[in-house]
């Protein structure tokens, strides 16, 4: 029988993979995908706890996370397109214009 802990540990593993990918990769598109992985891990945690505690609020939270993730991807990809227009093939290391 699968207990809630299995789902939570899977979510922790997925979050970890996403976090390490965000730190290691330098391509902005891949970094966005890693953020999506982390958001999905949190969604799985929400739904698991929602079922475990018998509360529909967990699923409603996931609904809002989905909306915010969609908005984030739209704005983020627009920024990537705008940056690539000025500086083609820029990686995250090349973008230091805001450095103090």
């Amino acid at each position, binding site marked *: 029988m699968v207990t809630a802990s299995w789902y939570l540990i899977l979510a922790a593993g997925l979050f970890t993979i996403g976090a390490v990918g965000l730190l290691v990769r330098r391509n902005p598109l*891949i970094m966005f995908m890693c953020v999506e992985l982390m958001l999905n891990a949190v969604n799985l945690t929400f739904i698991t706890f929602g079922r475990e505690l018998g509360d529909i609020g967990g699923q409603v939270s996931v609904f809002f996370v989905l909306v915010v993730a969609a908005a984030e991807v739209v704005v983020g990809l627009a920024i990537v397109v705008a940056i690539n227009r000025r500086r083609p093939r820029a990686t995250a290391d090349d973008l230091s214009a805001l450095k103090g």
Partner: protein
Amino acid sequence: METAIFIVCAAIVLAGALGVVLVRNPVHAALSLVGTLFGMAVLFLNLEAHFLAAVQIIVYAGAIVVLFLFVIMLLGVDRLEDLSVEPIAGQRVLAAVVGLGTFGLAAAVLATSDIGLPTQPALTGPITDQYSNLRQIADVLFTDYVYAFEATAALLTISVVGAVVMSRRMARDDQARQSAQDD
């Protein structure tokens, strides 16, 4: 049955996630992401979140990944990335430490804590078998969270406008570049 589905989907989810991180081609990374999101949708079904499983497929696999692929094609960045060099010295070692620390702490908390026992009644609405999953979500969404729901409408509108403004080609920039080339 639930155990078998969980094991298969967990393997798909983790394999897809590792693919996103380790693969050199961004297009392959996006396709690995589809695998992860699909496995996640099946896990949602396993957890009886039927509506969110459908939304996961439609919004994530259908819209977000397609948007990623559009941008990859638009920018023509479907080149291979050289992963053998480390851009910042010691970065990968530190990232591995962060990863092991995150996972180790989360797993330790899960192993020692006593989860799964409802100690208080549901704050929003209880999950019952009386109504469908969609109706239960809608009941809460349009009563307790109605202002947040309206705010998401504003958020989506603002993000769409922002995306259009930021990805628009500036007419003034083009003129400046043109005159610079003429000179």
